């Protein structure tokens, strides 16, 4: 006898259930998106020691602001933009206290030390370069290149036109290319 397939509840349904008072729906949303959010913040250079707190704060803020979620972009995209802004605010706070710069720990499957060193160097340069981009360039670049989102979705999330999203991506890539070279 086969096990009945579990119906996947959409984010929209979970949000509606949470707004109706079902806490388990909020927990499910957190389980569903916490990992992707953490990875998205990590690729922007969020320190490992702060990562879980950042994820937690982002999700908490998102639930508190659910009334303003219009559903133009997906819940995840909305979360990622909230997280990015929170990270930016935290960076300002961290800038006022001494921090230890961490080099990305990049492993290379070939095990070739020179390849590992090169990969580490380019990853570090890219991380620096991403940090130097203008806000919209950085967000468009990461949502497109890292999350693989279509321009239309990015445009809705950032409240810009699709054409503007394409232009920001183009400029971001150009600047990163020059930075890494």
């Amino acid at each position, binding site marked *: 006898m086969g096990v009945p397939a579990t119906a996947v509840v959409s984010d929209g349904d979970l949000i509606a259930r949470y707004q109706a008072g079902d*806490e388990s729906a*909020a*927990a499910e949303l*957190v*389980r569903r998106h*916490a*990992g992707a959010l*953490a*990875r*998205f913040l*990590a*690729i922007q250079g*969020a320190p*490992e020691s702060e*990562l*879980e707190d950042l*994820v*937690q704060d*982002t*999700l*908490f*803020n998102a*639930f*508190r*602001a659910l009334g*303003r979620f219009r559903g133009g972009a997906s819940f995840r995209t*909305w979360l990622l*933009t*909230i997280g*990015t*802004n*929170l990270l930016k*605010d935290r960076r300002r706070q961290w800038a006022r206290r001494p921090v230890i710069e961490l080099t*990305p*720990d*990049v*492993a290379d499957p070939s095990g070739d030390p020179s390849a590992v060193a090169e*990969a*580490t160097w*380019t*990853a570090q*340069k*890219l*991380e620096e370069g991403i940090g130097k981009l203008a806000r919209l360039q950085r967000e468009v670049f990461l949502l*497109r*290149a*890292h999350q*693989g*989102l279509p321009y239309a979705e990015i445009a809705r*999330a*950032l*409240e810009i036109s699709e054409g503007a999203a394409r232009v920001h*991506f183009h400029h971001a*890539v150009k600047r*990163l*290319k020059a930075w*890494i*070279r």
Partner: protein
Amino acid sequence: MDPMSELPDGIARALKALDADAARREAAVDPERVAQRVLARLRSEPVAPVALGGGTHWVWSVPRTLRLAAALALLVVAGAASLVIVRGSRIPGPAGAAALPVAIPVDSLSQAQAEAVLKAIEDVRAVNAAAPAPSTVSVEDLSEPELRALLQAMQSSEGAL
């Protein structure tokens, strides 16, 4: 179209390497623990500052103690205002006192007893000036010292007769 294919090779490789590192860091985040903490905060912090896309928007959170203090202050101010209104509309003097609906029928008192009762009430009011009695007072409205004074006055007036 794969977004990675839009990237120059160097950037694509670096992004992959960076993503591998991000994945390692992601593994340190426990979604279940995050869920429990977020739920706990949602229960204990009804309103909080919210950072949204496009900048930080502050939704003011008033601590519960502050809200309680504000409610108490409002009660005190409202009470004081009511007192001023009551004082302003009160009928002063013996006319007010003569209208006291006390449990003892006034017409059953002798003139001396009635005068003693009135005097006792005036004395109590003078002593207790900070909280003057309202214009219509029943025995239930009198405080313990006022009742004692009233009884003493009645006993002494009976003794005098």
